[in-house]
């Protein structure tokens, strides 16, 4: 099959903070370079979801005059709170006793989706070609095994893979260097990591699932600039996670919850934990007279430097959370993702101009402040495998007394899909019914994401073994996909007395949790037809 080909100097897969920063930096270094960005969402920003308390360090370097360019970075953090939650009580932890990495007074509360929209405008102003609605679905290789570029998804196939009237074949985009910036658990990044064994000798990657809701709340409860985090209830001591509440502009708050995907109980439902969390008196008081206006979820990467794969390979680089540059104790990944993209751009500039090997990427990376940050942060996440309390004590010592300079590195022992215990041995969890005022079900939530996938297209959530969910996973783990999916894509239905595994793929919001947590790694997330997925506004 021959497809049309377009040639570029650099093709960037993914229009998030890392990809757009790479694109901007490339054009700043050499405006003659042909750079294009492919984005699977219907527009830049529509698949971006993040807290977000933004540290401007990378942006200060990339676009020093961002304040003059009408950027959507406006709400400075003015007050901080940290609460430990018990079932009904809460204990406020003094901010001065927090590790420095968790102090936010120089940062801004932003919508990362809006920042990406703005970055895309800057990039287009510099001549970058941005193509939303075009997922890169396939990696192309040269005869020598190096990455040649990517192909975009065929459009207009029916559910059996047959061509419809509207069929439009994918295109090949060839590049001197391809940059993969798909974000956490990118489906091409995953293939590259396997093919080039980029994670050889590294710890297994660690993930979390993050939820976010935007609420419009009453004026008397809204304190623009307030940043609040919690740990503790409703999670038990063994489950890693916590919440955020950021008071943004226009009486809006960004309310969210992150749960480590290394949880053990297959009955745990991250979505319902988040909903239950909102019923805590310390949280409820903010939102009880408010209105939920947005909902979404996305997996995030937590493994840090121990799990960070090699980020270069012949013909390609891996940047941002497609590799895993998030700083977990800081609960921030946007500035590190951006910086990793900028370093990639500088690498490519030298590679194209002076024939330097792409391996200089890692040298540059390890000399940068990103590496310094991630290195200092490296022991926090693994210490929480000992439980919340020991984790906090260790983190206090590690981060406050030693500032991350302890002379050893803790490792991540297990991949997240290996941590579930047999359903028989674990307690069932009885989650309260939603009240439709502050807690909701998945059906009404998915509606707010605006997600859709054109009907009659191949299912983009593929099962390696279609019988495994019923024959094995249901029996052993009570099919946890029913619970870890934040929008109810997976259901077990009883039909004529037989259990049936149903995939409502049109509801998928591209969070990638199933691809990560499925205990047998039986689910593979692939790109659906372009433009499908959520339509997030200011997430």
């Amino acid at each position, binding site marked *: 099959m021959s497809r*049309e080909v377009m040639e570029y100097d650099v093709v960037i897969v993914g229009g998030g903070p890392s990809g757009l920063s790479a694109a901007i930096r490339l054009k700043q270094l050499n405006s003659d370079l042909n750079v294009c960005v492919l984005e699977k969402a219907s527009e830049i920003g529509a698949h971006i979801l993040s807290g977000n308390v933004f540290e401007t360090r990378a942006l200060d370097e990339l676009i020093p005059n961002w304040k003059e360019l009408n950027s959507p970075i406006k709400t400075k953090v003015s007050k901080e709170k940290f609460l430990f939650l018990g079932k009904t009580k809460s204990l406020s932890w003094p901010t001065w006793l927090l590790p420095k990495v968790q102090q936010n007074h120089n940062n801004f509360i932003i919508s990362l989706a809006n920042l990406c929209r703005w970055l895309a405008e800057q990039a287009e102003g510099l001549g970058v070609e941005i*193509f939303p609605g075009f997922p890169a679905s396939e990696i192309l290789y040269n005869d020598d095994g190096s990455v040649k570029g990517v192909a975009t998804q065929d459009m207009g196939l029916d559910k059996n893979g047959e061509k419809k009237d509207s069929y439009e074949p994918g*295109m090949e985009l060839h590049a001197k260097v391809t940059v993969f910036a798909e974000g956490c658990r990118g489906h091409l990044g995953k293939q590259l990591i396997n093919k080039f064994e980029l994670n050889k000798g590294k710890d297994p990657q660690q993930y979390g699932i993050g939820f976010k809701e935007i609420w419009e709340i009453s004026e008397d409860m809204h304190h623009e600039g307030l940043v609040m985090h919690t740990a503790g209830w409703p999670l038990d001591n063994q489950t890693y996670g916590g919440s955020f509440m950021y008071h943004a502009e226009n009486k809006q708050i960004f309310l969210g919850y992150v749960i480590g995907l290394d949880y053990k109980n297959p009955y745990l439902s991250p979505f319902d934990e988040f909903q239950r969390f909102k019923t805590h008196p310390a949280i409820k008081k903010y939102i009880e007279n408010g209105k939920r206006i947005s909902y979404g979820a996305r997996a995030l990467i937590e493994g840090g430097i121990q799990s960070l794969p090699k980020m270069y390979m012949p013909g390609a680089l891996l940047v941002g959370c497609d590799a895993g540059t998030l700083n977990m104790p800081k609960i921030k990944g946007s500035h590190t993702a951006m910086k990793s993209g900028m370093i990639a751009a500088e690498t490519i500039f030298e590679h194209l101009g002076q024939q330097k090997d792409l391996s200089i990427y890692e040298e540059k990376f390890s000399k940068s402040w990103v590496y310094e940050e991630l290195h200092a942060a490296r022991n926090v996440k693994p210490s929480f495998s000992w439980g919340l309390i020991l984790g906090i004590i260790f983190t206090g010592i590690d981060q406050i007394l030693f500032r991350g300079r302890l002379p050893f590195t803790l490792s991540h022992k297990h991949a997240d899909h290996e941590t579930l215990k047999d359903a028989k041995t674990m307690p069932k969890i009885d989650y309260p019914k939603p009240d439709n005022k502050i807690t909701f079900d998945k059906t009404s939530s998915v509606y707010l994401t605006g997600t859709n996938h054109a009907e009659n297209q191949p299912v983009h959530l593929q099962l390696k073994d279609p019988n495994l969910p019923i024959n094995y996973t249901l029996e052993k783990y009570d099919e946890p996909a029913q619970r870890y999916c934040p929008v109810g894509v997976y259901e077990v239905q009883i039909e004529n007395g037989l259990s049936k595994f149903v995939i409502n793929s049109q509801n998928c919001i591209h969070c990638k949790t199933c691809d990560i947590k499925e205990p047998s790694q039986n689910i593979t997330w692939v790109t659906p037809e372009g433009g499908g997925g959520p339509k997030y*506004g200011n997430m």
Partner: protein
Amino acid sequence: MKILVAVKRVIDYNVQIRVKEDGSGVVTDNVKMSTNPPDDNAVEEAVKIKESGKAKEIIAVTVGEEKAQETVRKALAVGADRGILVKAPGTIEPLAVAKILQKIVEKEKPDLVFMGKQAIDDDCNQTGQMLAAILNWPQATFASKIDVKENVLEVTREVDEGLETIEVKIPSIVTCDLRLNEPRYASLPNIMKAKKKPLEQIDASELGIDIKPRIEQIKVEEPPKRKAGIKVSSVEELVQKLKNEAKVI
């Protein structure tokens, strides 16, 4: 033959519409916008007619703010030859759009004007009919099939009773139904080419027509929430409730 296709930029059909807190309208900031879906069908049909050799040129036109350009570019990417953006700020009612299109028709002299049967934002379903009246052209609304014949169009219309087939003389106005065709996807090379196709910008104020709104919008609010239903245990109870509580029988 020359075909003029009118397209409108609206909030994407997947987005949940949210009313502004002050009731002055709906939230459009950072909301995904798209081409009004039946307008895509109108463009597609024009392109098909051109591909069959029966039309020589397709002009896509829109009325709205600067950003409405994107909607014209999309039409260019799937096969329109050139575009026109008539810049007009604020609320533009169907009559105003019809008057603007009349001016464009006078200038471009197309043989056919296609557009969607209605826009999914205000659901007016008026512009095509008004334009036909102003131009004194025949109209075929809710078209689900169009055959171009010698000097006439044979159009199948989606009407309440089923399908109605009519013949209209060219020049004429056709408003398109979603069943008319399956719009194609824009391919990457065509999106690139579309960036280089001519897109003329005209200021509505230069057309010498009155486009002031005729309708004053007092307040926008969400429909009241439906109360949860209840289950009744017997027919007697249902009748009882319909009689005494709902008071409908």
